[in-house]
């Protein structure tokens, strides 16, 4: 019998392909990509290359991609318990980053209005780089904390 799209997707998910984890060696490859991109970004800034905005966007994307590769690489001993810890660390990072990013501008606006810094300005719209790097930082921090608590 022909399987529906939903069933096919569920099978795909059960095989772990919707949330893919990659081999442990990619942890170092990801770190290398990030480190090279940081060096590239700094050198472009120091050399004051034309169209720096464009290249800083590209380098920042590479930095984040490297960090994501590191984050998605498996542990040496990957089991169900580590998988649950990973999910929990992702959940903590997701929630804390979203709470922080949503509430920060309101807090800044409130402080501005209390100390009388008028006219009020909305300066807190964050870039993707800031948002994603905050999430990655929280994820890595909590995952390491949870692993130590095992």
């Amino acid at each position: 019998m022909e399987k529906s799209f939903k069933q096919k997707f569920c099978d795909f998910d059960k095989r772990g392909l919707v949330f893919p984890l990659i081999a442990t060696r990619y942890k170092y490859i990801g770190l290398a990509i990030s480190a090279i991109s940081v060096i590239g970004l700094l050198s472009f800034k120091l050399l004051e290359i034309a169209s720096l905005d464009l290249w800083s966007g590209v380098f920042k994307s590479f930095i984040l991609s490297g960090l994501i590769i590191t984050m998605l690489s498996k542990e040496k001993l990957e089991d169900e318990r580590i998988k649950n810890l990973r999910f929990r660390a992702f959940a903590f990072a997701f929630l804390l980053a979203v709470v922080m990013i949503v509430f920060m501008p309101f807090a800044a606006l409130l402080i501005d209005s209390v100390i009388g810094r008028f006219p009020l300005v909305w300066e807190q719209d964050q870039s993707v780089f800031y948002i994603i790097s905050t999430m990655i930082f929280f994820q890595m921090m909590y995952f390491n904390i949870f692993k130590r608590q095992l």
Partner: protein
Amino acid sequence: MNDKQLNKVRKGDFLLLPHYMKWAAIYPVLCGVVLFFFKEHQQFLNEEVATGMAGHLILLGFLLIIISRDKFPDERLLILRHKAMAYAFIHGMILVIVTPFLTFLLGSLFRSGTQLDFTDYGMLSIFLFQIMYLINYWRFKQEL
């Protein structure tokens, strides 16, 4: 912090609000939408602040929906919640990083000679994360 509180924090149950907050979330979303469409007709805030605040009020509403408990919360739903957040994290991240990159690559292939730009989603990415979470959580609950 005693052992019971510490255990609650470890389980990830500490940030969740009561179930009725799901309905209270309608108010910030409504306020955000009204402020966004009627920002020219008010004198309290300038247009830039009103736009930013409207966007953040909508995000706040969705955040309240996300962190409010289910009607009958249990350990299994908490695990599903964590799993959905992890999926939303990864899928949202891939979306907000890969899409601008692809746009840039395709732009550089097909628009040679003109000025290239690298635009990202900004605060819209948070909205995408929240939507991804809600879809994934709904999907996991359906599979139970």
